């Protein structure tokens, strides 16, 4: 069963001493027997998205098990739409945003326009969703679009709201790394179906073991576990046959 991690990153940790290098990420994935991972450079988050995205492309080119995820900081104004088009042209279909780190709200027209452009490019969008109220806001903003929106970092704190939104918006998905209540995965599958959950680990900051253990300990059948562990995100991104 090929495992694809939909939520990783690499780069420099500035606020605490930690090794978030590419090598640390690769080692974490290998230790956890994760075959592929979507990843992006933190340089694009904290410094310059074009430089960061170039770094992401270079790293993923050197390590075929890594799948590039682009990021754009909508505060910049200059070159944002162009960067979406450039990265889409480079074959990157996944986009991830970091509003908390960058200090902008979802109801933010420069961001809304980027989402529309990514939809036009056939992309998929990963968005943090850790607080109550966020999923509903995203639902109102993007719940009628076609672009897949993956709610990341949902925990027991806001799982009820996230499930309601994913259940109603056909383009919404759930990333799993903080769904950690005893029946959380089973409950989510009962509410929204096994095709709407994507394994994420947040490696290398977070150990992959807990998120993997939650899927494996769930009451899902092997086929359904395979969907959550990798085939769902592989299908969304059109990854190659080894993940099917």
């Amino acid at each position, binding site marked *: 069963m090929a495992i694809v991690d939909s939520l990783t990153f690499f780069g420099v940790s500035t606020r605490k001493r930690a090794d978030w290098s590419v090598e640390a990420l690769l080692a974490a994935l290998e230790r956890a027997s994760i075959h592929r991972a979507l990843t992006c450079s933190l340089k694009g988050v904290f410094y310059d998205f074009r430089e960061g995205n170039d770094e992401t492309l270079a790293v993923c080119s050197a390590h075929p098990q890594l799948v590039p995820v682009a990021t754009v900081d909508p505060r910049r104004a200059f070159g944002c739409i162009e960067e979406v088009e450039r990265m889409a042209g480079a074959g990157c279909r996944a986009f991830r945003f970091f509003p908390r780190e960058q200090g902008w709200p979802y109801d933010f027209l420069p961001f809304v326009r980027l989402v529309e452009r990514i939809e036009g490019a056939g992309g998929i969008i990963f968005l943090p969703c850790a607080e109550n109220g966020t999923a509903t806001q995203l639902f109102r903003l993007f719940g009628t679009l076609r672009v897949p929106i993956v709610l990341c970092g949902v925990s*027991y704190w806001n799982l009820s709201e996230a499930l309601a939104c994913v259940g109603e918006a056909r383009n919404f998905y759930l990333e799993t790394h*903080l769904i950690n209540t*005893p029946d959380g995965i089973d409950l989510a599958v009962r509410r929204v179906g096994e095709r709407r959950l994507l394994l994420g680990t947040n490696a290398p900051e977070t*150990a992959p073991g*807990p998120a993997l253990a939650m899927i494996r300990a769930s009451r899902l059948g092997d086929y359904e576990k395979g969907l959550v562990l990798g085939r769902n995100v592989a299908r969304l991104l059109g990854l190659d046959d080894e993940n099917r």
Partner: protein
Amino acid sequence: MRIVDVHAHFGKWPFPIPVRNAEGLLRLMDEAEIEMCLLSSALAIVYDMREGNRALAEAIAPHPRLRGYVTLNANYLAESCEEMDRYLDGETFVGVKIHPSYQGRSAGSVENLRLMEQAAQRGRPLLIHTMGEEAVAETVEAAARFPEMKVILAHGGGVAWQAAASKAGQAPNLYVEFCASACEYWKVTEGLRLAGAEKVLFGSDMDLISPHFIRGMYDSSEMDEETRRKVYRDNAIKLFGLTGV
């Protein structure tokens, strides 16, 4: 290995988590290879100390694999002392629990220091919710005032887990367990290096958090078999004087 879980809860949550009775908890423990768990009452922590402790006592009485913490509230010193005297005379309740956040009293507050003084006199270990640098600092300082009392820093201080583990390694009466939603890479491995194998315990936060999730963190850390046995089991048995495990 059959695990002793020193941080678990009994009761309901305002989250999408099915309500479990004692039998439900035992089934969850079996799934995660947990032999015994030490529970505090969610009701006692978030609302009514007395009613919560009473409900917990009733629920665990028939089940020797379930032991209890008497939950205390620093805003009710006399009542907390009564609760300790009511429940701590047998083997069912093996420690006391303080959750400073829900009480609105920090670990170093005058109210909690008075409560800890009383708890220390009863000779049972204290599990205290500890999240963040300030909480770690206050709890460590409070624990130093009562060296005869064993104090477990629940959640290992959260984001301040390195400080918590380091202090546990220095103070003879301090221990850590690391249950949390944020399972930072190497937390348990590095925590063991800082605290020492005798000072780290297994805690899951069940059934708010799945024991499988927390086992995923502990299991993927670097431990030799002797250390694993201490962390998962022997340290808790020794610290709480557990019998029948």
